[in-house]
């Protein structure tokens, strides 16, 4: 598979989860585990450009796939506009849900460059955050959309 632009090959047990492969084999620990049963979205990554819960995918199922994790958003240590807006808008407190939120929002903005508030709330409804009350996250996504050259 290709992970964050690099091709990776490894032998894994069939029951090894993709999230464990990313976190423990590749040491990409930015992807978090909040439930391991597909309910919180903390483990959201992009699998062939679509948001996916890496706790619900076995590593072997991702054979040949192209994967992007939170670690790919910043370019040469420069935060992406979405990351900057999350930071500026206090769209995080403990930060545990943040990588999953950012990956879901990345997918949303790729599909819908200028989403409405309702579209954002609905798209992000599968990603749980216990700290922020979501409104700063919605604002950060909107602000990112507003930054795109029209």
């Amino acid at each position: 598979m290709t992970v964050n632009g690099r091709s990776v090959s490894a032998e894994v047990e069939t029951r090894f989860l993709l999230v464990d492969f990313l976190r423990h084999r590749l040491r990409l620990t930015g992807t978090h585990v909040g439930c391991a049963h597909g309910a919180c979205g903390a483990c959201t990554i992009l699998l062939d450009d679509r948001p996916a819960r890496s706790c619900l995918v076995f590593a072997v199922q991702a054979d040949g796939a192209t994967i992007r994790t939170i670690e790919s958003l910043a370019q040469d240590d420069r935060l992406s506009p979405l990351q900057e807006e999350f930071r500026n808008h206090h769209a995080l407190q403990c930060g545990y849900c943040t990588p999953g939120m950012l990956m879901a929002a990345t997918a949303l903005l790729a599909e819908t460059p200028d989403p409405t508030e309702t579209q954002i709330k609905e798209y992000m409804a599968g990603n749980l955050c216990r700290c922020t009350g979501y409104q700063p996250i919605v604002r950060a996504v909107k602000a990112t959309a507003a930054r795109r050259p029209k």
Partner: protein
Amino acid sequence: MAVGAPAARLEGAEKVSGRARYTEDLRLPGMLHARLVLSPHPRARIARIPKEAALEVPGIVAVYTGADLPIGTAARRALAKEEVRYTGEPVAAVLAESEAAAADAVERLASVVEYEVMTPILDPMDAMRPDAPAVTAVILADAEAAAHAAASAGAEDQEKRPSNITNHVTYKRGDVEAGLREADLVIERTYTTPRVHQLYIEPQCAVATTDPASGHVTIYTATQGQFFVREQVAKALDLPLQSVRVVPLTIGGGFGGKIQLIQPMAAALALASNRPVRLILTRSEDLLLSTPAPECVMTLKTGVKKDGTLTAIEGKLIFDSGSAPAAPTGIGALLMGGYYRVPHFHVEAFEVLTNKPAVGAYRAPGATQANFAMESQMDIMGRALGLDPVAFRLHNAAAEGDPMPDGKPWNRIGLREVLERLQRHPAWTGRETGDGVGYGIAVGGWPGGVESASACMRANTDGTFQVVTGAIDVTGTSTTFAQIAADVLGLPVDKIQVITSDTDTAPYAGMSAGSKTLYTVGAALQIAAEDARRQILEIAAKEMEAHVDDLEIANGQVRVKGAPGRSLAVAEVAARSMRFGAKHPPIFGAGSVPSPKTSPGFAAHLVKARVDRETGAVKILGHVVFQDVGFAVNPAAVDGQIRGGAVQAIGWGLIEAMRYDESGTLLTSTLSDYPLPRASDVPPMDVEFIEVRSQYGPYGAKGVGEPPIISGGPAIANAVADACGVREVSLPITAERLLAALEGGRPRA
């Protein structure tokens, strides 16, 4: 100026880039994986734990039972011994070379542990009966509960009883019977609130390792209070404090629920195996054995005159504390109407043990429950007498100097001010009536936790400074600390680094709980920064041959006031105080404070909601929170606290509850079953700061964490009553529950 202006979070960049380090990210060489075997029964005798079943699994290293590792206190054991007291109680721990092997071993062993099942006591009403069997034979004042009685509610009458009632608090003034006789209207109701989980998104986690040379143990963990963890681990393992080091890593949410839980177990396993041990709960294990908010049954009988004057409050709260004493009895009793001026008052609260997991603190413990009952009751009385809900509350609101239920006077509070701001807000003055739309308000407060605290300020020779504290940053307090230090020193915020060091090196700070981190540690830090500033000026005065009083610091330069040409860089001052042969002592600021007086924080909620009569669904159309924050040092962080708390309140109001079946099995043991508010559930929300300055907090700041969650639930219940005429006395007001009431023609509000 840095203070009072919104500042971006210092740790924001590492959190948005995935670089922040959480406990689960830690991998130590030779590390073993621990997993726990949990009891499937709420009350049983353990007949046999055939350890061989687990030991056969390849990769397994060791299996321990309560007999092998008798750690913890009698009321709260790390591993059950002889009998289990709740479903989910750990009965054995396995250590394996991999997480998968540990999971396999747990599965094997769990299926063969033999129990003699007994009838559980699940209902606190049953547990209170004198003939009820004891949930635990040992009645101990629980250290954890005491430590988290953050509001320091001094009860006038506390007693310990040899039964399942482990605490009983009474507050009394006047003569309620007489007060009720004077009333034109007496209302009596029973209210209930469910067991609600803090549901931090990062599960409980700890990694422990030992130093073979010294025998010391180090614990890396997510906790709100590292010194408290150190003390509890030392006590559980009978070690001197110096032998235990707690290193707090980034915490993935706490809300009162991440203080101390599995750390003694992780430390014991590391010591027993002499290998590093990682113990991370799965989400289900976390829901089964961590410490949520208690269920509460409350009765209120209140009297009021036609003009809206309260004459008497008589109340009772029964907290289901689960298998160990930890309920917020004192705070609950203090806040059941204690913020209204009423001559006759009698409220008592009971803590009762049952065969469920022990409870713990969840944001504003005791306040959320008591306030739901009191503010619902206010709405019922106000409606019956045709009173304006805001005016009715204002008419009875306590003010500075009025007695609290414990007899102490209220310090300066903004109760009146938050209500007055609500009264003028367009969302209130412009109320529109429409089909199924209703408005509800409620107000409540948090007494404010207090504790002594210390901090220090170190200079570096490049002109940067390090603030060192022992306070855990759960909510953004590091950023606020940096703003304060920068303000005092006259430096840009980026010259300040804020460090939470570990229990071996940090100056003492209490747990980040009770809305007291900025209030106490921030105050100590302000003193430390002033101390450092004085030293800088003294050194500069000597070097510049000027008088100290003529100097000021601006933009990183010490300058002679009025003579812009004469200046010396702060970096240079620092460098001249720290080098070979230096003439000056190193700049080192220290600050410590005793527990300050409290500055209670009040907040009012205004909720506009629509009830769908077909489905019973409640949709919140608008929500405004009016909170007295004293002074917002970092308005962006304060705003975030209020919104986060208010959405948790929506969870309390409409959806959240841990549910058990009759056999004591948790039905909501996954995140798919336990409902949390989602982005799509959040209504348009406004936040209004009211700034009634505290006389004690830094810059007049008050604690802001707890207040925003307290009155959201009752404001929603009151809006529902206004919208459809149904008075819900139990939270959460789920669509199912409301529909049943609408169809059943429940008595009107």
